[in-house]
């Protein structure tokens, strides 16, 4: 059965060369798919209702998730409420394509209600007016509650997003608590400068909360993206309206309820489940929203920025796609490089290295393609190391070992122990990835491993490795966001830097070498927001993350993330008879 989509998605307009056995369910992933047009008024929506999935198990009967879905409504002003329209949408188990729950579908009217609640909470409520230490205490209690409910949260995240339970429970949920504690610690340390003046003036800088922040998060790391966005916004004293991805609305609703249990005043955090063209667009265009933060595809990011420009010029933070190079020099330990490159790409569907929590955390995300590493997860990570450049002297060995590693990768039910890679998020992503695989074959790349779906049911894809990839091939240029590793050969540092930088993206890069000078040179020469040297996907709370070029605007995490949620006010007054200037 051909995976033809009637939708107007950019992707679907490409020829679809190869039969794919899956079909999509429900509506497509706006964020994930990278459609640029869908949000603009008057543009065609690219959603379609494709035939229900053929329901053959990937490898086995799915494991029953050990959790109940408690929250499916919108969270507005501290209450769970139905959508104004009364409508709901289905959120689906990517292992099977079955419906997990029907979730209230927020649209423009619900965004209006949520923004009004946030506005009140910010303009009149206690949150920005209490001491930073009190805000800190709320976030610390929230972190404690996350740990107390870790099993439920992880199960929800795995069920809704297809990530392995080992990854969500072992890495992501602890990281959410860790991020929250990090931002809690910043709340009472937000300092403005007292500034030297040219004349007799006393000048100080106040960093004030920016107001109501609109935040849109993707489906690839729903909880981690929640933490990256909500943590700094709340620590700085803002109110928030958060739109989750329609593929993964469940975990955010759950943890938002915990945040209220921790003492967050009503209206400070509002969560609206819904779709990009309706809820997302309304949030971006809203005149009562003071700031936007978006993580998702570059195409959608452009729309977000455009809507901000057309409405009230609200500042925008964007964390977008990538085609991140992973560079293996000839002096690298090839075995280690293979493993890291593998994980760098495949991260996010599987995680065998759960214990390495802090490092592995990688976050990853959304609509990006990714690195193979840790992930065999599904490669659904924005900073996935999706272009693996290998020095000619170790190239053959590297390809051979990468093949072996990919063939070894365990694909299956993410609730099952030992599984490294779960399903892709939905039918649309699944088909898109397989189209890219076909494109690789057609353009003459050597298919070394994988290349097809895994099993006959759900959105599982075999770990796929292409060798002999050329720069001009589509699989070397576009973000696949799936478990597809592309290996390219290079000869010199100058060459690989030039080729690595020849991309509209600039999210991250990996450099694998023992040579200090080469590492230092490449660290500065690569036009990307993160360079990992002899490691990959280290996502510590204090390390800033974000892109150069079309990979985004601004930085998240670290002290840098606070800037996104603070206004800067200079206060100037004359000083008479100053003792010093």
């Amino acid at each position: 059965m051909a995976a033809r989509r009637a939708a107007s998605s950019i992707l679907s307009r490409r020829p679809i060369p190869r039969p794919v056995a899956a079909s999509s369910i429900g509506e497509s992933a706006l964020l994930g798919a990278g459609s640029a047009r869908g949000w603009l008024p008057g543009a065609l929506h690219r959603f379609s209702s494709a035939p229900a999935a053929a329901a053959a198990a990937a490898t086995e009967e799915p494991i029953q998730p050990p959790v109940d879905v408690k929250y499916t409504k919108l969270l507005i002003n501290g209450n769970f409420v139905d959508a104004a329209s009364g409508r709901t949408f289905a959120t689906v188990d990517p292992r099977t394509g079955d419906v997990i729950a029907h979730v209230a579908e927020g649209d423009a009217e619900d965004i209006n209600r949520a923004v009004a609640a946030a506005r009140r909470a910010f303009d009149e409520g206690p949150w920005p007016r209490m001491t930073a230490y009190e805000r800190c205490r709320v976030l610390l209690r929230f972190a404690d509650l996350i740990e107390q409910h870790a099993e439920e949260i992880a199960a929800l995240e795995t069920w809704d997003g297809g990530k392995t339970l080992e990854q969500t429970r072992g890495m992501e949920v602890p990281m959410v608590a860790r991020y929250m504690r990090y931002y809690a610690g910043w709340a009472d340390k937000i300092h403005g400068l007292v500034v030297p003046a040219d004349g007799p003036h006393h000048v100080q800088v106040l960093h004030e909360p920016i107001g109501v922040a609109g935040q849109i998060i993707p489906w690839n790391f729903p909880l981690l993206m929640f933490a990256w966005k909500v943590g700094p916004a709340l620590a700085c004293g803002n109110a928030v309206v958060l739109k989750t991805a329609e593929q993964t609305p469940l975990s955010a609703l759950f943890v938002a309820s915990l945040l209220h249990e921790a003492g967050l005043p009503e209206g400070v955090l509002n969560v609206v489940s819904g779709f990009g063209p309706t809820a997302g667009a309304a949030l971006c265009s809203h005149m009562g929203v003071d700031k936007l933060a978006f993580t998702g595809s570059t195409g959608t990011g452009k729309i977000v920025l455009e809507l901000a420009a057309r409405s009230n010029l609200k500042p925008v933070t964007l964390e977008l796609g990538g085609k991140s190079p992973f560079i293996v020099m000839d002096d690298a330990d090839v075995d280690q490089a293979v493993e890291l490159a593998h994980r760098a790409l495949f991260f996010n569907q599987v995680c065998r290295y759960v214990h390495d929590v802090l490092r592995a955390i990688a976050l990853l995300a959304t609509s990006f393609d990714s690195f193979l590493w840790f992930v065999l997860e599904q490669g659904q990570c924005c900073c996935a190391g999706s272009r693996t450049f290998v020095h000619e002297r170790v190239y053959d060995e590297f390809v051979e070992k990468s093949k072996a590693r990919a063939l070894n990768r365990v694909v299956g039910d993410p609730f099952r122990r030992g599984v490294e890679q779960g399903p892709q998020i939905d039918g649309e992503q699944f088909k898109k990835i397989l189209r890219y695989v076909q494109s690789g074959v057609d353009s003459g790349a050597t298919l070394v491993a994988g290349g097809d779906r895994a099993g006959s049911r759900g959105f599982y894809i075999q770990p796929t490795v292409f060798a002999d990839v050329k720069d001009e091939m589509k699989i070397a240029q576009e973000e696949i966001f799936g478990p597809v590793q592309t290996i390219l050969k290079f000869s010199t540092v100058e060459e690989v830097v030039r080729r690595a930088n020849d991309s509209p993206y600039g999210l991250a890069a990996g450099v694998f070498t023992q040579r200090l000078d080469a590492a230092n040179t490449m660290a500065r020469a690569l036009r990307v927001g993160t360079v990992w040297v002899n490691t990959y996907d280290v996502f510590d709370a204090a390390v800033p993350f974000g892109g150069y070029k079309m990979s985004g605007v601004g930085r998240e995490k670290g002290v840098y993330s606070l800037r996104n949620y603070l206004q800067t006010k200079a206060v100037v007054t004359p000083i008479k008879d100053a003792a010093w200037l």
Partner: protein
Amino acid sequence: MAAAVANGDKGFEVPKLEIKFTKLFINGRFVDAVSGKTFETRDPRTGEVTARIAEGDKADVDLAVKAAREAFDHGPWPRMSGFQRGRILHKFADLVEQHTEELAALDTVDAGKLFAMGKAIDIPGGANLLRYYAGAADKIHGETLKMARPCHGYTLKEPVGVVGHIVPWNYPTTMFFFKVSPALAAGCTMVVKPAEQTPLSALFYAHLAKEAGVPDGVLNVVPGFGPTAGAAISSHMDIDKVSFTGSTEVGRLVMEAAAKSNLKPVSLELGGKSPVIVFDDADLDMAVSLVHMATYTNKVDLSDYPAVPSEIMCTSTICSKFSSILHINSAILQGEICVAGSRIYVQEGIYDAFVKKASEMAKKSVVGDPFNPRVHQGPQIDKDQYEKVLKYIDIGTREGATLVTGGKPCGENGYYIEPTIFTNEEMSIAQEEIFGPVMALMKFKTVEEAIQKANSTRYGLAAGIVTKNIDIANTVSRSIRAGAIWINCYLGFDPDAPFGGYKMSGFGKDMGMDALEKYLHTKAVVTPLYNTPWL
């Protein structure tokens, strides 16, 4: 009698208190002193012995330093991530909070501090400091540098090593956490010498730190005396840094010992003779309340003074929410605080009215048992201080200062002194740190004169300004050579606000991110760059 005495009042409950920890805490265990000696700690309410405490001296300091050295050089504390240290400090804070009542009672019997204020301020304030630095532990940043040659340069902020902390008796809990929290966050190990008057809560904190997961040897507590244990710390060749809070005279000895031994860096938080300057445009009632609090602070409960608007004490809102750190404490009278506003300059237009109101307020203060919630002012810390304060009062009188109110002991036993006010132009009581409930009121005419008088001291710890005029506030703030300026408030302490003196009030800051600097070394790392696309 100038002030009401509440000593005879029995209508309140003194909590039953068991003294659990009386030995030295070294390498994670409570141990006797090597010498086997002990000393008495006394209840300043009665002068009676509270407990016998193991008396550490040089031999014990050596053992403690050895443990700290081992913990730093080979132990996990500096090797775990800042986040992990922060988690342990958070746990420590939770434990402190869970023992608030017991700890407040310890400080009360040991230091005569108001029990209610200990519960509301000192102990929660200690937990707040711990949480502040727990949150700071993963935010210690070095910097990458802009080099003048094709080089890559960056700085590493490394823990300084083994720290010696010498802590005073006036705020046993607060001072303990001023010193210990940032040093722990930075990854240092340490030997703490609490004051011989107030060893009890420090030993309890050592116990709680261990329970929270601070590894053995990281935090050692050695009660003892300055000339023996304190001197051993200051001159120890294996201590990398000494942090001291106390008198200027002793601070000088500490620095000298550091110089003579291994040139260890020293930070000193010393005495003060802090001015409060009240300008003509001030709200008189507010100014009187503020000055009263500023002068008599440490053993007075401000919350019973409705005339004191909450804004006056910057910390008071905090206070009411249990988050303050420090000091609010007691304000009225004992004056046992280094930042006490002990020189009060009042502009001539409101001077007479000010003196009258200040005197009335002093007379209304209730002096008595600090466990009594009706009491505003407790006893002085010990017999020495008590006698020293009375001596200064006598000198003031003989030098011709006008005694407006107070000036005498209060009650039959214990170390209670009436809130006392002198007025005059020049008096030695306006030059030296009395550390007692004695206010010196003086008149001035112009802003320039006020600045000049305020600065005419060898101290520079803090200053208060009471005015509604923005230009006066800003000008005087920059002109006064002191480490803390409180405008229309006093005791504006906050975990995020660095505190420490100018001039002979010391150097180095406690609190805020600045305090971390005391416990960190900066290391610059430089390597050449080849073929770099930018510099």
